[in-house]
């Protein structure tokens, strides 16, 4: 089995699957509604020029997340 790591630690251009993230909080429910669910493939595209936020690609669209939120999401390769 592959080890789980944080979404914020994903390398540039690499795709992984979402494993888990906090269940409550409006932010995370909204992320689910936007299709970020356990098992969804997600690719790290780039960081903003000042290092934060981060840009990801999932389900055919690009989404921004702050590092702080990405740290609470775990992924598996």
């Amino acid at each position, binding site marked *: 089995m592959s080890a789980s790591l944080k979404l914020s630690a994903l390398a540039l251009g690499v795709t992984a699957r979402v494993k888990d993230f906090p*269940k*409550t*909080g*409006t*932010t995370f*429910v*909204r*992320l*689910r*509604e*936007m*299709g970020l*669910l*356990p098992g969804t493939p997600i690719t790290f*595209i*780039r960081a*903003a*020029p*000042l*290092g*934060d*936020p981060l*840009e990801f690609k999932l*389900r*055919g*669209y*690009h*989404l*921004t*997340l*702050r590092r702080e*939120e990405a740290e609470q999401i775990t992924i598996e390769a």
Partner: protein
Amino acid sequence: MSQLPSHITGSGKKRPAHADRTPVYALVGNPNCGKSTLFNALTGLKQKVGNYPGVTVEKKIGETYSQHGKPIKIIDLPGAYSLAARSPDEAVTRDVLLGRRSDTPQPDRILCIVDATNLERNLYLVHQILDLGRPVILVVNMMDLAESSGLQLRVDRLEQALGIPVIACEAVNGKGLVELKLAMSRSDLPLARHSWDIPVAVAPAVAELQASLTDNDGRSPLVARAEALLLLTDFDTVRVAGSTPLSARTTDILATWQKHWEGEGTDWAGTLVGSRYAAITKLCVDIVQQTGATGPTTSDKIDAIVVHPLWGWVVFGGVMTLFFLSIFTFAQGPMEWIGDQTASLANWLKATMPEGDLRSLLTDGIIGGVGTIITFLPQILILYFFIGLLENTGYMARAAFIMDRLMSRVGLNGKSFIPLLSSYACAIPGIMATRTIEDPKDRLVTILVAPLMSCSARLPVYLLMIAALLPGTTMPVLTKVGIMLLMYALGTAGAFGFAWLFKRTLLKGRPPMMIMELPPYRLPGIKDVALHMFERAGLFLRKAGTVILGISIVLWFLTTYPKHPDATAAATEQIAYSFAGRAGHAIEPVIKPLGFDWRIGIGLITSFAAREVFVSSMGVIFGAESANDDTTTLRVALQKATWPGGAPVFTTLVCFTLMVYYVFAMQCMSTVAVVKRETNGWKWPLFQIGYMTGTAWLVCFVIYQTGRALGY
């Protein structure tokens, strides 16, 4: 005759008055999927279109005609990712759909628009909407983009699976509109095959909430079920209930269940969302196919430069410089042309009309006021052209992405930067755009600081002052650009500074998250940019022809009467003796420490209506003073103005201070009205006038007094 079927009596002929009521369609979909583009194509109206999420923030009703010539009402709505609204714009959509807005007819049928390039996420909202049990037509838009990215969509299969009309469409090119019109004209629309299993864990709760919503909140059974499901994915039940709060019984049931689930460790919201997505994934299996490998798209390549740590800033700076340069170069010719036309009109009037009050009203009042203002039309056009490019290419969302880090320093997020950028054009659309901000406090902070961004109405003031800044010399273009950039920078810095202050004091709160969709770049439709630009130019001219004309006439009257007892008195003495002059003199003590005389004071008072009125007022006042000399331009007239002792009024320092005053002061009635509406009361607009104008006075005091001490 009246026995004929309705499609026969309805075609061509006038419909009988008792015909069944006009069907109302709501246009619903995720942000930026092309709703307004489609709305415009169907209705011929000009809703604003732009390539970033959150362009439309208020409903708009339009009309089109069915295949049989019957009217159909269409409501364009703000985009939403989910019916569990998180921000005021999404709440508009939810409330219209659930029939909670008294000013809007409840839609009978729903036009769901989805973006073909990310069908699954778009179908989530559709899935929620199908719960409402109303006839739905599904429009799969952006088929061109899906095709070019190698996606194959079997629209026919989607139609079979759902059992409702599904129409492939390219709203920008008008493709698919005929088929859509046909579907919309059908008198019978099937209901969707929409059987999905509410997860076992939450099903009893949904049933109980549905019963309570029907019994205690007066909802119809279907709406009650849809709303019960929404309650489970929302953590702010007050907002879900919208204007009418939920009954105590319903709130109790929800709270009891939530506590129960928390105790059990059930992830109720996640389960619910997950089961919707499971249904959607199942639906999409045979429908979407990726053909061919996908390399980096054009959009990715552009972003590699635009969002690059180094090149990004170069692009940003380059665009800004180009913008200001074109204001001082391209605009110069047309501006002089307009100026010449108004001047020759004034001269012609002077030559043909006998001297008297009427001639003075026409030349000094109307041409002096309105004529001065419309010379700035070319610059206003350029400004709107640039903003239109930002909005329609997709750069707007990138700007928010790049600026988020800085915005987080002041306690806001990058999304607040979009309304601020829009405010460079005009604070009113900027303030409307804050509806996309989720957190009410962050939204309020953004509303409070948005008018500090230099808007198009300040442009004439800045340009006039820059022209008058250095007597007798012509300044190099780059110096002008530099001064202009400084003013814009000052306003922007002020907005950031006050946002920081407000977030730390009055409106404390956690820094918000930054969940935002970045749309792919698009070549801006020249039509979209041009339409918007000319529409704004039209508004500007209309304002010149109404508000500014009115104020100029009133001001002419107030500067002409009462007449000075000595009919041969100099124009300056006449104005000093007039009503306006007395008002100016009355406030002179307050503004004298800033280096402003009573005539500038008159301009400050009149421009409370709108900032450009300052320029027209100067035109009326100084135009009258130099009435005998037709060739003086306003600039020269200003430079000739003196204090009683003979010292010039418009020194370099005063011109500069005056520009800074307009950077900060709140001088716009329309903005005040919009802030009042958006914040539901007078408290915040009054606070805004106070803090902005107070800051303007203080900053100008410091600048002027320091400048004086340094010998300027």
